[in-house]
Structure formats: structure tokens, C-alpha cells
């Protein structure tokens, strides 16, 4: 890379109140490369890219693009400079059709009226290019509200591409994509690289960095730590750079049995090996549960046990949790809690029965983002502290909330700050922690670690282990096999609404899970599987090799 960098950011500083987000960060990237920006939560990588896209104004520092200084005052200016961003929080208008969203803000017009034909001419090539990601169709006139989250994310990508960028920012753009969709995206990224576009890529999935990125800049504590060539840098080294310490600790990349044990042992002394005491009565037992996408699920979880739900995405894992929590349809089967049948008809009844639910989509289902941390923490247990059922004492609410915040080790400014001021990882800890005071018997977690970084993920699963240690039965659904291997005692592999395999003990490795999810046993399901070749989870070839070694 002898040519001068296409993008150069130098000495960028940004403070939010008392928090320093960027402390003199420098960043350089070249046209025609795919450049990853890595770092734990709060490392400043998001702020750095927000400065680039003009969403955040820096306190100090310079940005030069193609030799010219760039001082954007908003998305309009960066767009004019050729910078397009794919946002983590979607920037789509749900009521609009896909086509209207793609050209929003850049609508071509003739004689003062919008020119639909020109809009179509600009958009159609990209939608057609991404057709495999939409299941083969080209959803020009469908409304965004009718698309599923993965498809919306693909629309978001197309929207950035329609703007014909010189710099494309992909901020966690793959978090809600299925594997087939990621493949198409990476093909397009390769094409863009060949055309001289600079692609900046933020992700928490290391495998994706190795799959598509040329270079990577690691951020920590608001500044850049190192910029490396991806191909020449082993994964362990990247993790060390990110965490600033040898990767054996909470980083979780080197999953070997002893590490996993020391990881959770101090916080979860009561965690039992399921093989050790198979005679212990189950805390939660499900027999032949049927409902939406559920065709007879049976399982049991003992107190203190963490049971994983694995398999391909969309095989009924979410529906199972919803049915157990009284939020989804249940048409048959029994659910026994401590031996007694329970049938909650609403989440409220489920909570009263001793269930709690941690969604992956924390913004929508898990948190009141605009409300103070205090209220969010206190909400599920508020009825227990109310005087005569109505009177609340602020002092007691604060004490309860503070106890939880300490227990889950959340960093916050003031309990009165809105939850939205916390980082993603800390928000998710609130989502989990708020259930502590209700002393739940069963904890249901649906992809709880989606889109949070490695360190925060490890801390959050420490909280899960603690919940389990307090005697709860924990059920974790995840699309990330590595996550399941790290936190679960046993993992059930689901396929088309049934449990098709149970993996535990020595067999509990990423390899086995991937193999089990894809080569399901039983002739009927194997045949059915042929119809879904693209709906794979995210098996990460590199890790599979490592696990096998």
C-alpha cells in the first residue's frame, strides 16, 4: 500500500458528557480494500464511523477523503461526498415499498414529479443482484413492513448501493442475515473492491473478517491500537489486540474444556454436570408441545442447568420460547413446572408462574429505551415492592435497582439516565438482570447475545450462569453454535419443530452441533432438509477446523 490513503482520519476526539468516546484516534484506509474496524463495546469504533458518516460531529480532528478535507454537518453532506452507510438500526420507512425506500432522499425527478422509471432503472440491478437473498424474488413493490428482518437488512444494503458510494460502511450489517444472504453480500463486496470502492466493515463475527476483509484496525479505549493485514494475523492475535490481554480469559475464542470451566466456575458453583445426577427431578418438563411451527417438542431442564436450543435458524426455537412464555400459540402437550402443570395464557401469567424471557431484539421487546435505567430494572418486580399493591417508594426502588445493577456489573452514569445511553452490551445485561428480583424458576433466552461484542457476551453469560446457580432452569436459543458450546450443559438440536438430537458432555463441540444441525438423523427430516439448502446457520469453517484439532 504505497499510494496515499483514500480515507485518512487523524486525531479524532469526541466526548459525550463525562465519557470520552474517542481520544485522538487515527485511521487510514485505501480504495479498493475491505477494511475491518474491530473493538470491544465502548472502544469507539461506532463513534469513529459516525464521525465519518456525519451523524456525530467530532470535538477535534480531521477527516480527509481522496485528499480533500471533509467536514460533514449531516448525512446529506457525506452522501454528496460518496459515503454510504448500512445502519445497524435500520433506516427504512416501513410503510414504503422497497423501491421507494431505495431511492429515499435521492429520488430522481422530471418536471418536478418523481420519475418512477428512472428510480426503477437505478434500483432494479441491485435488487436483482440480491435476488438469492430474497429467496429468489425481486420485491420491488412489496412494503418493507411485510419483509422479515433479514430481508429488511438486505434492502438496507441495496439502499446504500443505489447511492453508488465510493465508501461503503457496513455497520453490523450481517447480524440478522442468514448464511445465504451473507454469501451474496460478500460476493457483492468482492465486486465493489474490484471496482475500487472502499468498504469499511464492522462485525462481531471473526470468521467474516477472515472471509472478506483485507485489513483490520483494532480500536480500544477510544483510540486505534493497531492496523494489521488480516491474512497474516492469527485469530488469537486479533483477540489479544482487542482485549488487551492474552486471549485465554473471557474472550472465549479458545474453547478448551479447562478454560470453559474456569470461566464459569467462580460464579456458578452450583452448576451441575447433567450427567452426574440424572435422577434429580426436572425443574421444567415439556411433553409433546405443539403449536405454531412446533410439532411435538419434549424436553426437560433441571434446576441449575443451562439447556441450549440449537440447529438451523427458524426451526421452531423462537416459537418454543414464545409458547412457554404464553406469547405464542399452544395447541397441545403439557408443560410441567416442578411437577405441576402450567399453562400461561399471557406473558403476565407466565411471569407469575415463574418464567422470565430475554429476547434478542432488546430494543423492541426487552427494554423501554427512552425510560430511565431505574424503571427498566425495577419493572418486572415492581409488584413485589408496592405497598398495598399501589404505593411505591423511590428509596426502595433505587435500592433494588442498584443491587441488580451491581450484581450484573453494569456500568452506568446515573440510574435516572435513559437506558438508550448505555452501550449494547450493558443494555443486554439490564434485560437479563431485571429478572433477578423475581427469582425466576425458568429463564427463557432467545438469541440473547445477538449483536453484542465478545467481552460483553462473556459477562452476560456470567449473569446467566448466576441465574442458573440460584436454582433456575435456563433455556438458551442461539444461532451461534460457539455460544451454545460455551454456556450450555446440554444442547438440543431442533429441526422443523422437533427435537432431533441431544448433544452433551464430550460430544458438545461446535463440530458436532454443525454436523447434527445439517445431517439430521432420521430419513423423513433428512428428506425435508433437502428443500432448505440455503437456510444454514453460521457454521464458521475456520473454527470447525480448530475445534477438530
Amino acid at each position: 500500500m504505497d499510494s496515499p490513503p483514500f480515507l485518512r482520519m487523524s486525531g479524532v476526539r469526541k466526548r459525550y458528557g463525562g465519557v470520552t468516546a474517542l481520544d485522538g484516534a487515527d485511521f487510514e484506509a485505501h480504495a479498493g480494500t475491505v477494511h475491518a474496524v474491530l473493538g470491544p463495546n465502548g472502544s469507539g469504533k461506532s463513534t469513529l464511523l459516525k464521525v465519518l458518516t456525519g451523524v456525530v460531529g467530532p470535538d477535534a480532528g480531521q477527516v480527509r477523503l481522496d485528499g480533500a478535507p471533509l467536514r460533514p454537518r449531516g448525512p446529506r453532506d457525506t452522501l454528496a461526498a460518496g459515503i454510504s452507510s448500512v445502519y445497524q438500526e435500520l433506516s427504512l420507512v416501513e410503510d414504503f415499498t422497497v423501491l421507494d425506500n431505495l431511492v429515499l432522499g435521492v429520488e430522481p425527478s422530471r418536471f418536478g414529479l418523481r420519475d418512477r422509471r428512472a428510480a426503477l432503472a437505478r434500483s432494479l440491478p441491485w435488487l436483482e443482484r440480491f435476488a438469492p437473498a430474497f429467496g429468489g424474488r425481486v420485491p420491488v413493490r412489496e412494503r418493507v413492513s411485510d419483509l422479515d428482518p433479514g430481508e429488511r437488512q438486505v434492502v438496507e444494503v441495496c439502499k446504500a448501493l443505489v447511492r453508488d458510494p465510493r465508501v461503503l460502511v457496513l455497520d453490523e450489517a450481517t447480524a440478522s442475515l442468514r448464511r445465504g444472504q451473507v454469501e451474496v453480500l460478500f460476493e457483492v463486496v468482492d465486486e465493489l473492491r474490484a471496482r475500487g470502492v472502499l468498504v469499511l466493515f464492522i462485525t462481531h463475527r471473526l470468521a467474516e473478517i477472515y472471509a472478506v476483509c483485507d485489513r483490520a484496525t483494532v480500536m480500544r479505549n477510544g483510540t486505534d491500537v493497531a492496523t494489521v493485514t488480516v491474512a497474516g494475523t492469527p485469530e488469537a492475535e486479533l483477540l489479544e489486540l482487542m482485549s488487551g490481554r492474552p486471549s485465554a480469559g473471557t474472550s472465549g475464542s479458545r474453547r478448551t474444556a479447562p478454560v470453559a470451566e474456569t470461566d464459569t466456575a467462580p460464579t456458578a458453583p452450583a452448576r451441575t454436570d447433567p450427567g452426574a445426577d440424572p435422577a434429580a427431578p426436572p425443574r421444567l418438563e415439556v411433553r409433546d408441545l405443539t403449536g405454531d411451527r412446533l410439532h411435538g417438542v419434549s424436553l426437560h431442564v433441571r434446576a441449575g442447568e443451562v439447556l441450549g436450543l440449537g440447529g438451523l435458524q427458524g426451526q421452531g426455537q423462537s416459537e418454543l420460547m414464545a409458547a412457554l412464555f404464553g406469547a405464542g400459540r399452544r395447541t397441545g402437550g403439557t408443560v410441567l413446572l416442578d411437577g405441576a402443570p402450567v399453562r400461561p395464557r399471557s406473558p403476565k401469567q407466565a411471569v407469575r408462574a415463574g418464567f422470565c424471557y430475554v429476547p434478542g431484539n432488546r430494543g423492541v421487546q426487552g427494554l423501554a429505551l427512552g425510560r430511565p435505567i431505574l424503571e427498566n430494572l425495577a419493572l418486572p418486580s415492581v409488584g413485589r415492592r408496592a405497598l398495598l399493591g399501589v404505593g411505591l417508594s423511590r428509596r426502595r426502588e433505587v435500592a433494588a435497582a442498584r443491587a441488580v445493577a451491581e450484581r450484573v456489573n453494569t456500568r452506568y452514569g446515573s440510574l435516572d439516565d435513559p437506558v438508550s445511553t448505555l452501550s449494547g452490551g450493558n443494555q443486554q445485561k439490564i434485560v437479563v438482570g431485571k429478572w433477578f428480583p423475581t427469582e425466576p424458576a425458568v429463564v427463557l433466552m432467545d438469541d440473547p447475545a445477538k449483536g453484542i461484542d465478545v467481552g460483553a457476551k462473556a459477562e452476560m453469560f456470567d449473569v446467566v450462569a448466576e441465574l442458573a446457580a440460584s436454582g433456575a432452569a435456563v433455556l438458551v436459543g442461539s444461532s451461534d453454535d460457539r455460544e451454545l458450546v460455551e454456556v450450555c450443559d446440554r444442547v438440543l438440536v431442533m429441526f422443523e419443530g422437533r427435537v432431533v438430537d441431544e448433544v452433551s458432555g464430550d460430544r458438545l463441540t461446535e463440530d458436532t452441533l454443525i454436523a447434527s444441525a445439517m445431517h439430521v438423523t432420521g430419513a423423513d427430516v433428512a428428506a425435508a432438509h433437502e428443500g432448505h439448502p440455503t437456510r444454514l446457520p453460521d457454521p464458521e469453517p475456520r473454527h470447525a477446523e480448530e475445534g477438530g484439532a
Partner: protein
Amino acid sequence: MNLLRGTGTRDLPGPVRSLLSVHMPALAVGLLLLVTVTASAILQPGFFSPYGLSASFATFLPLATIAAAQTIIVLGGGIDLSIGTIVTLSSAVSVVLMQGDDARLPLALAAGLATGAACGLFNGLVVAVLRLQPIVATFATSSVFGGVALLVLPTPGGEVSPVLTGTYRMVLAMYVPIPAVLLVVLFLSWRLLRGSRYGQHLYAVGGNAEAAYTSSVPVSRVRVLSYTLGGAVASLAGVALLADAGAGDPTLGTELTLGSIAALVIGGTRLRGGSGGVGGALVGAVVLSLIQGLVFFAGVPTNAREFVYGCVIIAAIALAGLLTARDGSASGASGGTR
């Protein structure tokens, strides 16, 4: 994978589902129009006579125009509680300048339009730049505009130009009253606005202001302009009221504010913005006016009219709401488990 999402229409293929949900409001308000027109034709003698049509459209037009004005503002995510007093103020300015003189008509109309636009601009700046809550801000400005109207025209009176009143009463080709023509012109102007980039940006800002901002839509400018356009269109309603009444009145339009909101809701416009349209609001206003006439012609005792009128409006809004309530795409926030 939103587990709180209902099934229902999710089983239909995407395009069909989109079409249905897009056209449901139009079907609902169309049905209401059919019912009220049929009832009027039965109960109201001479409803379809040239005189009957002329009288009907003369009462439709002011409410329809103010409903159109309110719709433009609501679509952009705002609301304007001062819209009635904008009508009052602009008509007061017009009638004072007019002095019953046809030669002064153009000047008076231009001044009225400018007054309405200026009031709207003021609202827009207060809402979009000072970032005050629209409902409170425009409640306050409604007192301001109403107060100024009383200063301009302290008592009912003033003389409207004969040309204006004469034209308003004209009926073309036996069955086409001028107010009906103006209603069509209003609708066509709206279609033009809807087809422009601004029209699209208006819906985007009302639908998801943050998404619009990150897509480089000038959100504040769009908001300010929506209030300004709304004010200008409201002043046209003032002109229609003047032409209909033949004289000015410092309380002329005040009570129309809530009527404008009722009309747009019946017409299928979503109160939090981003969905609906002026077409529905125009029909909604016609339905609302017809209901008022029906209550009169159905022989409801004078004291009970207001009560019956209110009940019928509730029924109409409920019907429109029931027909347009979509499951699936609208659930997220409601958190229901159906």
C-alpha cells in the same frame, strides 16, 4: 422472527398483502360515502337537484379544504390545533381589505393566502426549529391567531365582493356547482404534490423521521413546509367560508379544527403520520357534512342533534378504524398475542 406477530394476512403472498393493506382505508371511506349519500338521497328532498347539489357542495368545500390542510400537516408527523383560527384570521384579513369591492378582490385573496402561509410558517418554525410538542405549540398559537383576528375584525361584518359570492353559487352544465369543481381542483393539486419529491419526503418524515434523516431527507425543512402549506390551504377554506356566508366573522373557522381531524381520521389517515392521504380526507369531510345534514333531515329534535351527531361520528370513525386495522404489520407496538 418477531414472536409477538400475529399470523392472519401473513399467509397471503407479499404483493397481495401489500395491495390489500394499502387500499383498505379507501374501501372503508368509500363504503361510508355510499351509505351517507344513499341515506341523504332518501331523507333529503331534492338532494340531487341542481339547487340541492349546489347547497351541499357549498357546505362541503370549507370543511374539505381545511381537512386537506390538516392532512398535509398530519402526514408529516405533526398536528395543527390552530388551523381553525388560521382560517378565521386569514378570512378576517381578506374581508377587511375587500370592502365589498370586486376590484380589490385579487389583493384581498392574495393577502389572505399570505396570512395563512405566514401563520403556518410560524407554527412550523415553532415546532421544527424550537422543537416544541406540536399539540401544545399549536394550541398556544391558536390563541395568538384568534386574538389577532379579533383585533383585525372585532365584530362580525365586513362586506364580501359580489363576484366572489356570485361565482361560488354558480352551477355549470346544470349539475356541476363551482364548489364541486374546486373540490376536484383541490384533489388534483394534491396528486401533483404527492407525485413530487416533496410529497414523498413528507410521507417519509411522518413514517420514520430518523430513517428520513439518515437517508438525507431535509427533515426540518419538510416539517416547516408542511405547516406552511397547511396554513396556505387553510386560508383557502377561509375564502370559501366568506363566499358562502357573504360576510366576515371573527369566530368563523374556529370550530372547524376538530372537524378537520375527524375528517382525516375517517378518511384513513394515521394520526401519527406517514400514512393516508388528502383524497381520503376530502371524502371524510363530505361524509362528515352529510351526517350533519342527515341528523337535521331525520327529524332529530333540536336539543338532541349535537348528541346524535357525535354518536354517529363515533360510529363512522369506529367503522373506518375496524376496516383499516391491519394485523401483522401493525402489531409490534401493541404487543398483543392474538
